[in-house]
């Protein structure tokens, strides 16, 4: 409901309330006219068309104020001796860019305070070396040769690097022998090619920045929900028939509020590379005349704790005591494109759009008595999915 729709609803009801007489035109007819002639084109951000199914009678909800809702997550596969545990599914993500010193100081202070006073362990991904911290730091490696040749002290709980070529696999293999904390690998649109070798070489987690992947991809119609869905599917294929031994999917980009965090988690993200804390710090330091880093770190702490409260509230309302039990089966969409991109069931049907089309095609083939092989059936399904 946008502002124009609010105006229509209000004016229409007030017309009735003032006259008590039938109107000429209903609320829906006015809204339709507005959609046809006005500039109120519906937003196509697919996040806004996805909701989750809450718990009621068939599944009782938990109570986030009175019961424990588990947000803890461990990073590190079976072979990783020094795993890192976060208190919530967020790791502050640097967007592969240098963080300003003032911003870094505020973030550092906030993360220390969160750990000390709120018992909340949040991670930070950045290129900087950071001393005197009591939170886990994941150091981004941009110069690989320097790390290997100089054998520098890592002084970090985890490592992060980009994978975009064959050399990345070799680098991971080399560094894995040397480093006993979790290693996270940031992939791009070539993830299908490198995912398996990366996991074979001992990557503990895959970072997917949806904005970067979409920008590099040929498919510009792709939305973040499809990126998450596709990478999670690729990870699941790697573990087909086996239990996931702790590989985490970290999704960054376009996931910047609690609602999207929950939707992304349901689609397969384990942790969110969260830049909003960075944004809050940058906004203060770049645009306030007198920005005090203590005050800014206080803001970051408050924002994180409120977000933590929200992240406990949603799974509880869905009937889960553990945030990580949310799955795509808990989601419904009111948009066909969202259903196609991320295999989400359409509300009111309990079927994805693809399943609806497949049902139709099988019925059509039977009625028309066509003798098609499976690939031809699939071709027909794809034709209907594309030509909507």
């Amino acid at each position, binding site marked *: 409901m946008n502002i124009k729709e609010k105006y229509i609803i209000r004016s229409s009801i007030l017309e009735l309330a003032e006259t008590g007489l039938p109107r000429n035109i*209903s609320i829906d007819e006015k809204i339709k006219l507005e959609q046809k002639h006005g500039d109120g084109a519906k937003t196509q951000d697919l996040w806004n068309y996805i909701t989750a199914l809450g718990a009621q009678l068939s599944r009782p909800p938990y109570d986030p104020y009175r019961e424990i809702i588990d947000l803890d997550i461990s990073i590190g596969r079976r072979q990783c001796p020094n795993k890192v545990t976060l208190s919530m599914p967020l790791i502050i993500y640097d967007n592969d860019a240098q963080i300003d010193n003032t911003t870094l100081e505020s973030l550092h202070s906030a993360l220390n305070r969160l750990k000390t006073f709120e018992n909340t362990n949040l991670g930070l991904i950045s290129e900087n070396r950071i001393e005197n911290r009591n939170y886990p730091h994941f150091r981004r490696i941009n110069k690989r040769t320097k790390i290997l040749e100089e054998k520098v002290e890592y002084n970090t709980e985890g490592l992060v690097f980009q994978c975009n070529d064959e050399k990345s696999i070799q680098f991971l293999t080399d560094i894995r022998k040397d480093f006993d904390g979790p290693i996270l690998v940031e992939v791009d649109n070539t993830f299908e090619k490198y995912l398996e070798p990366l996991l074979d070489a001992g990557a503990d987690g895959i970072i997917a920045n949806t904005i970067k992947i979409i920008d590099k991809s040929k498919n510009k119609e792709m939305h973040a929900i499809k990126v998450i869905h596709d990478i999670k599917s690729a990870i699941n294929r790697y573990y087909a028939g086996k239990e996931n031994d702790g590989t985490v999917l970290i999704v960054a980009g376009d996931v910047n509020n609690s609602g999207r965090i929950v939707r992304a988690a349901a689609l397969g993200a384990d942790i969110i590379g969260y*830049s909003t804390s960075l944004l809050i710090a940058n906004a203060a330091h770049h*645009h306030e005349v007198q920005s005090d880093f203590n005050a800014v770190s206080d803001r970051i702490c408050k924002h994180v704790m*409120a977000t933590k409260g929200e992240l406990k509230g949603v799974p509880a309302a869905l009937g889960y005591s553990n945030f990580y039990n949310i799955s795509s089966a808990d989601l419904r969409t009111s948009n*066909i494109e969202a259903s196609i991109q991320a295999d989400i069931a359409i509300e009111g049907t309990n079927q994805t759009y693809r399943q609806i089309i497949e049902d139709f095609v099988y019925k059509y083939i039977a009625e028309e008595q066509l003798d098609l*092989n499976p690939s031809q059936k699939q071709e027909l399904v794809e034709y209907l999915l594309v030509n909507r």
Partner: protein
Amino acid sequence: MSYPKDILEIKRNLLKEVSSTKLVTKSDNFNSLYYDQSKIILDARKAFDGLIPYSGLGANSTNDYFSSIDLVGGTLKTDIDCRNIDLSLSIGGRYSNRKITTDIPFFVSGMSYGSLKLPAKIALHLALNQLADDGIRVIMNTGEGGALPWEVHDFNNGNPNVEDQVSRLLKEHNLDSIDREQLFRRKYPLVVQYASGRFWKDPDYLLNADAIEIKIGQGAKIGHGGLLPGSKVTELVAENRGIPPYKSAHSPSRHLDILGPEDLVAKILELRELTDWNVPIIVKVGASRVQDDIAIILKSFADAAAIDGYVGGTGAAPWEIRDSIGVNTIPAIRLAKDAIDNYYSKRDLDDFKLIAHGGIWDSKRIAKCIALGSNGVGIGTGFLISMGCTLVQDCYTNTCPAGLTGSYEKLNIQSSVNRIVNYIKGTRIELQNIVGSLGKKRIQDLNKADLYTTDEISNLVSGLSTNASSYYNKIKNKDLDKILRDIPEITKK
């Protein structure tokens, strides 16, 4: 919404940063910013006070389908005399000895004292009394915050505590001049809510009700429980609810004694015994796992089920809970009707009724819901708008510009009464015209054949069509050989 200066400054700086940084890039594909600007105020609020942001009223649904579904005919104005069209609705009789019968199929949804200020509650009460005098009975639902004394007690009840409470309530709002004898004369059917917070003071609340609604959840905060912010829990509200004043009232997210289907049956039987099996019992759920929930309600000893869609309103809900959870009203009705049809495919029909809530504001929407399968609808926000609500969604604060949900703005009770009466009478005439112009005598005769949709997604969610003919044409209009790559293998048996 009027926010403190500090919050606005944080918001302004966030916006500046958003528009200047690489962190957020404009997406050409989806005509939107990666950083959802509508949520920027939430980040500013969280950074300012560290609290979970609340909002009032319902979720801002991106697609509620109402404008894509229409009646095949059915006009708001007609030359046909439709005054005898039957709009009545009765609830009860499936298990209860009594029924409540109303003259219109829509009623006042649960909006409790505390969530609404006293003058708004009195305006609704007086308006429904006036309508009853005019021969139009309309149901009022108390909401979960308990009933006001005049809703459940007689004028001469002989209880000095009640008289004292009434005096203090009226005095606080400078309403001493109201005729108390008239105030205590309730002429409309009252449904009282039995919610997880158990906010009532004495058994009269249940014993003097015309129907009881067991509230499992509501559309705006499914699975979250009720919430009344501390700033709205004045001493009188606290007294009426039996809770400490000025402390937020978080009612549990679930009834502590209803964890599954058997517990619901036990609870309903308990209430049935308490009320000598007289009053109808309704079970209300927020729309999510609708088929499963309605199937459970059907198998309990309930007389009716109420479903509250995603857009269903509230006085206060955590913003992200409100926007992240739920199913829209149209698909919710479809799923509920499917569950009901499935249940009665194996047994004889009885008096089970389905009530829909959430985003239903006028006669066309009421008719659409009934044609889809609900028997009646609940309206909340529509009544607030008729009293002057400006939809700023500040219901959780004490800054309501219309003086409905809390503020020092004074509500004109008489004007509000007139507007509520007009809203109901006007909607009633429109409904009669719609039903009459469709050639039907009773609103309950509306069915899915009276509806059509204008887009594919609305067809799918409402179940009005499978879209099969459209898909069929897409294939038929093309040469199948061109669609399929493996041309030689296509053979017709």
